[in-house]
């Protein structure tokens, strides 16, 4: 293979970040988050009613590898707004509570949005683990 310098996955990731004003890389989907931290981040974004793109990193481990190499951020989820990394679950929920998240997203927090970041799942809950007992 002569095209070793090409990195289609990394290019696809940076393309998606550039293309979407708000994009969340997460485990699972906004409808069915596969990790408590992703769930909590989704809940904060949803409470502000701002549309965002979402990418599930679980189907291919290379997505996570390339994303972390690109963003210099080791964990998932990762929220990007306007092409810039805003942060992971901790920063997003902290910014939700201070009002900075609505500011960064350019929205007014809805009047019924809770003051504290909504808890969709117990933070830090271990991911579902399925033991393959057939192996």
């Amino acid at each position, binding site marked *: 293979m002569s095209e070793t310098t090409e990195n289609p996955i990394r290019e696809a990731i940076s393309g998606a970040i550039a293309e979407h004003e708000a994009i969340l890389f997460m485990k699972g989907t906004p409808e069915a988050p596969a990790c408590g931290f992703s769930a909590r981040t989704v809940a904060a974004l949803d409470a502000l009613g701002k549309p965002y793109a979402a990418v599930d990193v679980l189907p291919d481990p290379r997505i996570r590898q390339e994303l972390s190499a690109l963003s210099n951020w080791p964990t998932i989820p990762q929220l990007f707004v306007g092409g810039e990394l805003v942060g992971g679950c901790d920063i997003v929920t902290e910014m939700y509570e201070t009002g900075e998240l609505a500011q960064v997203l350019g929205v007014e927090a809805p009047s019924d949005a809770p003051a504290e970041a909504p808890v969709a799942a117990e933070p830090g809950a*271990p991911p579902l683990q399925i033991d393959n007992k057939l192996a």
Partner: protein
Amino acid sequence: MPSAEELRERIEAAIPDARVDVTDLTGGGDHFRAKVVAPEFSAMSRIEQHRRVYSVFGAEIGGPIHALSLETRAE
């Protein structure tokens, strides 16, 4: 398997004058929460503060340390 105490010592050793509190969230030795207060954070954004703490553990984050939830402050 790392312990909360070990994580605390490593952060304190790496970041000068840091005040560190680490909790093992599940008791399983892989999901932790750390509160870190350090003078050097005053010159850093929140993202940079978190990167600084993550950098203490390198590739262990996402590996043996499945999750490290952070709260960082300057002061």
